[in-house]
């Protein structure tokens, strides 16, 4: 498909506390983007954001979905869960803030840099959350015209 990208969507189900398969969804997302011929710097930015979002679903949520959507203009990674929600989003966005439990910290998670890393790598970030209902993270990347 010279000169153009496919429009595709992929959905990954992420289980809470599933550290053993952590990173598999992000790894698949990376492979897909590479196959689509996306520029390697952009692939790297999306991969980092997807990984942090995937880890947050595993560490902090009761489980959820990680989605990849690619159109000719943009890449959108969505992470959606059904709880427990984030009480204070501004606080959660601060570098160093983390409520990660001890089991996660022992593995080297809980630096409180995940959401800031996502924001830094994204072109736009939309985060909505309601305690008791869940969190929705929409991470947008622009595909620049060549």
């Amino acid at each position, binding site marked *: 498909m010279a000169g153009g990208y496919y429009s595709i969507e992929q959905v990954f189900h992420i289980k809470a506390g599933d*550290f053993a398969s952590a990173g598999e969804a992000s790894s698949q997302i990376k492979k897909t983007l590479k196959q689509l011929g996306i520029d390697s710097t952009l692939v790297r930015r999306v991969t980092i954001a997807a*990984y942090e979002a995937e880890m947050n679903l595993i560490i902090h949520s009761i489980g959820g979905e990680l989605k990849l959507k690619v159109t000719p203009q943009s890449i959108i990674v969505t992470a959606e869960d059904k709880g427990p929600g984030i009480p204070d989003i501004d606080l959660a966005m601060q570098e160093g803030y983390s409520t990660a439990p001890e089991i996660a910290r022992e593995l*080297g998670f809980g630096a409180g840099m995940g959401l800031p890393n996502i924001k830094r790598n994204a072109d736009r970030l939309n985060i909505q959350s309601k305690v008791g209902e869940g969190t929705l993270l929409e991470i947008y990347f622009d595909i620049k015209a060549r």
Partner: protein
Amino acid sequence: MKVSQMVEALSLKVLAGESFLEREVCSGYCCDLLSRVMAKGEKGMAWITVQTHMNVVAVAALVEMACIIIPEGIEVERKVLDKAEEEGVIMLSSHLTAFELAGKLYQMGIAPVCKVVD
């Protein structure tokens, strides 16, 4: 520099990824917090960490590190090494501490940041 030259110079033990030792290494980083490594990690980096679980392999694969070096002779579980092998991640081990390894790599000309374009 190639990973094989680094293995030779520092007498490192190859735990996984033996067939990828001709890979280039140009930068190094030493950290056990995975989000920090995700932010700083780059292609061609030698990463020194005391963490030896599955997620270390995932991080190294995602950012295409040159290799992982485990200090102080810390043992790595077979299933982690199998995963590394499967993902093409080189895992090396040394009896030296992370501090000594980083010092030696720095002296050998391994920089904090490299500019490898793929």
